[in-house]
């Protein structure tokens, strides 16, 4: 966390008085950083708490599928639920129309659930599948307090009063012939959330959709785009905002795409799953329910040099009960022993074929 006055001794008192836990939507992270929720509980857990305040999050889109919109929607809705102003920019004529597609929070019907748990507590439980019960305990604690990360119901649109007023500022990237105008708008937005050691009252979110879309005028001005992203990153770093940006790497030259990847603090990428791919179906369990694959390429490391090595970097995006997004580890499907070929060749065959689909490395 940037300190306006640099502490010369390790033992000087930390001046931040109000803990962010009292401010809904923010929580302390390690090394003096603060987290903001992404809107997807699984993603927060994988990233170790959420998005760092002051970081630049980038999503590499797949032009075949619009799954990055799911992440964008939950990110923006989470901000509105927590009363955090949002600046939204997109390369369409009327960006405000997108706000109607934002999901609302999911309110579970919890009468049955509480009765069940009471009964279960009376009996002796042999918790051999202990991870199931860990999840239940957490649910009970959360009543009555505003949650850090909400479950979003993608079927229902967000309540009207949350998008009314000045909470959401929309900018159309088609209007900008060069990026200076947008840079001024973002710097004005970011200046509302300066970073200092005192109380953090609010945080801001910036959501930019499809930044390098070809329909924008500045599309061929590569260095201007890079320079804008760099200045956005510096502005965000010295403020209490998180910038969330999606871009299609296949539409850019590889060097520009790599530069953008280096500029990102947290880097995720989406890969589409082709429908009815028989080979992939034999390789993975639950293939039919999967919408796409999410790969975590880089996790932001503020104030520390130790990199985060995740157990698994690729997760499958699924919709649970068609309403909320869950991320699941990939599980290899059991090899069909009834087929005549030996294990070696069938396993080798399926692994070999997976390289054809999308060319990405699936890692378990």
């Amino acid at each position, binding site marked *: 966390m940037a300190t306006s006055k640099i502490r010369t001794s390790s033992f000087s008192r930390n001046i931040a008085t109000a803990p962010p836990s009292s401010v809904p939507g923010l929580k302390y992270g390690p090394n*003096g950083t603060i987290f903001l929720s992404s809107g997807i509980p699984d993603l927060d857990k994988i990233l170790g708490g959420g998005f760092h305040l002051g970081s630049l999050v980038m999503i590499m889109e797949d032009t075949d599928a619009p799954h990055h919109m799911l992440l964008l929607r939950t990110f923006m809705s989470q901000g509105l639920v927590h009363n955090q102003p949002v600046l939204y920019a997109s390369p369409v004529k009327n960006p405000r129309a997108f706000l109607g597609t934002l999901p609302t929070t999911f309110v579970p019907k919890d009468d049955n659930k509480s009765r069940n748990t009471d009964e279960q507590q009376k009996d002796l439980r042999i918790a051999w599948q202990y991870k199931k019960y860990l999840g239940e305990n957490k649910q009970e604690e959360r009543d009555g307090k505003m949650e850090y990360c909400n479950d979003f119901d993608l079927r229902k649109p967000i309540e009207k009063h949350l998008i009314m007023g000045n909470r959401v500022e929309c900018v159309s990237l088609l209007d900008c012939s060069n990026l200076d105008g947008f840079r001024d708008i973002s710097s004005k937005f970011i200046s509302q959330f300066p970073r200092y050691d005192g109380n953090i009252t609010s945080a801001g979110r910036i959501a930019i959709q499809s930044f390098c879309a070809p329909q924008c005028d500045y599309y061929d001005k590569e*260095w201007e785009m890079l320079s804008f992203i760099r200045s956005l990153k510096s502005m965000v770093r010295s403020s209490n905002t998180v910038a969330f940006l999606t871009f299609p790497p296949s539409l850019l030259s590889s060097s520009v795409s790599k530069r953008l990847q280096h500029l990102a603090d947290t880097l995720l990428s989406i890969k589409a799953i082709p429908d009815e791919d028989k080979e992939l179906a034999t390789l993975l369990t639950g293939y039919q329910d999967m919408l796409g694959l999410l790969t975590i390429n880089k996790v932001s490391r503020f*104030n520390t040099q130790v990199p985060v090595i995740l157990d698994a970097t690729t997760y499958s995006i699924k919709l649970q009960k068609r309403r909320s997004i869950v991320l699941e580890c990939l599980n290899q499907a059991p090899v069909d022993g009834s087929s005549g070929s030996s294990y070696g060749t069938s396993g080798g065959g399926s692994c070999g074929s997976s390289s054809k689909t999308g060319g990405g490395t699936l890692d378990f």
Partner: protein
Amino acid sequence: MDRPASLLDEALGFEDGDSKSRQPREGRVVLLEDCVETSGAFVLHHLIKRFLSPNHSSSDSVVIFVAFAQPFSHYDRILRKMGCNLAVQRENKRLIFFDMLMLECPDDDGTEGGLLALYGNIHKAVEFNSLNKNITIIIDDISLLEVAANGSTKDVLNFMHYCHTLTTQFGCTIITVIHDDIYSSEDGFTLPTQLEYLSDITIKAEPLVTGLAADIHGQLTVLNKGLGRWKGKIRNFHYRVKENSVPSASNGDLSNYLKTIVALQIPSELQDGFIASIDKGKMKVMPNRRIPASLLLTPGALLIGDALNMCHPLTGGGMTVALSDVVILCHLLRHLHSLHDPYALCKYLESFYTLRKPVSSTINILAEALYKVFCASHDKAWQEMQEACFEYLRLGALEGAIRTVCPIIKAEGFRQTFFPVTVFAYYRNVPMILWLHMTSSPP
């Protein structure tokens, strides 16, 4: 992280005898290449710590840091965990930090103008510090410098060539970072190739061929074209980045460190017990700092004890200082008529800081000196001193120890405590000891 650090230092040509035998004005250019999967920043932090550490070439080194990638607070926090306080170094003018995060090369001067201005600042800083000082210029990183220069590779190269002249003119060392996976799709004479040509040492950080792993974060390849016995050789290491040099207790690193490195230094009588308690898990880790007393100017508040003045716990003198401070304060405040009189209170507190000095400075110096003596060291002279101390204490059993400890309790002074030991050390050979016993007085 002692072993890997010295392997890397060896490969870079920074051996132990470096500070004595290094030719004074030897400028070098070091290029650090990394990629998205493995960031090479940890090498940069290691080099910063090395150049700013007090042992390095009699603290005559200055680091000029041009930062495009991260703000000052980021580096400060990381290096503080490694034991180097950047904020203090910046105040002491040993670190000159140029924060270039918001640098935009202005349109009217052109990108050339912006880079020229930056070079001018660097040159001024180098000139100012050029007398008898080893100057290191660190640029983090060149790929972002290119973005700031709006993609003008020609201007960036000119800037680098200008900086290179500083190595010959002033003997500076230049360290730059570049992300070479950005340029992998280009053919021909790319920026990394040109910088590799300029540099004496190239360090490349990349993931293992098999991918990323929790135990091995990547591999470093070091090519040293210039100095030392590694001239022209390529060395390859696997590395794992740690937060700081203290091994972590949770994953068994600490017990491993204690068993393999510390246990060997302990006298053989104690080794079994030491290893047994490590196995039982009876380890407690406490941070240990040196905090000189500094005035606290908050009205109505006073610091006492370790919060005010912390020294090495070897002598157990910290409590002595705290209690003596309390006694001094009591005596002072006894004469105060009312605690609501700010003027009088301030006068008394001012005198408190002065009156506490004899006791606290004695104990601080004693603790520091004893720590230095008993610290493990490769230096022959220190080892001799250690032996002498042990033998002195061994001699008199109770007497010798008391003679050392009493002055601490009475805070009589440095000389009183160490005189018996130093005399002993000086005259420590058998004929002399016999002579001492016979005559029972030194010559």
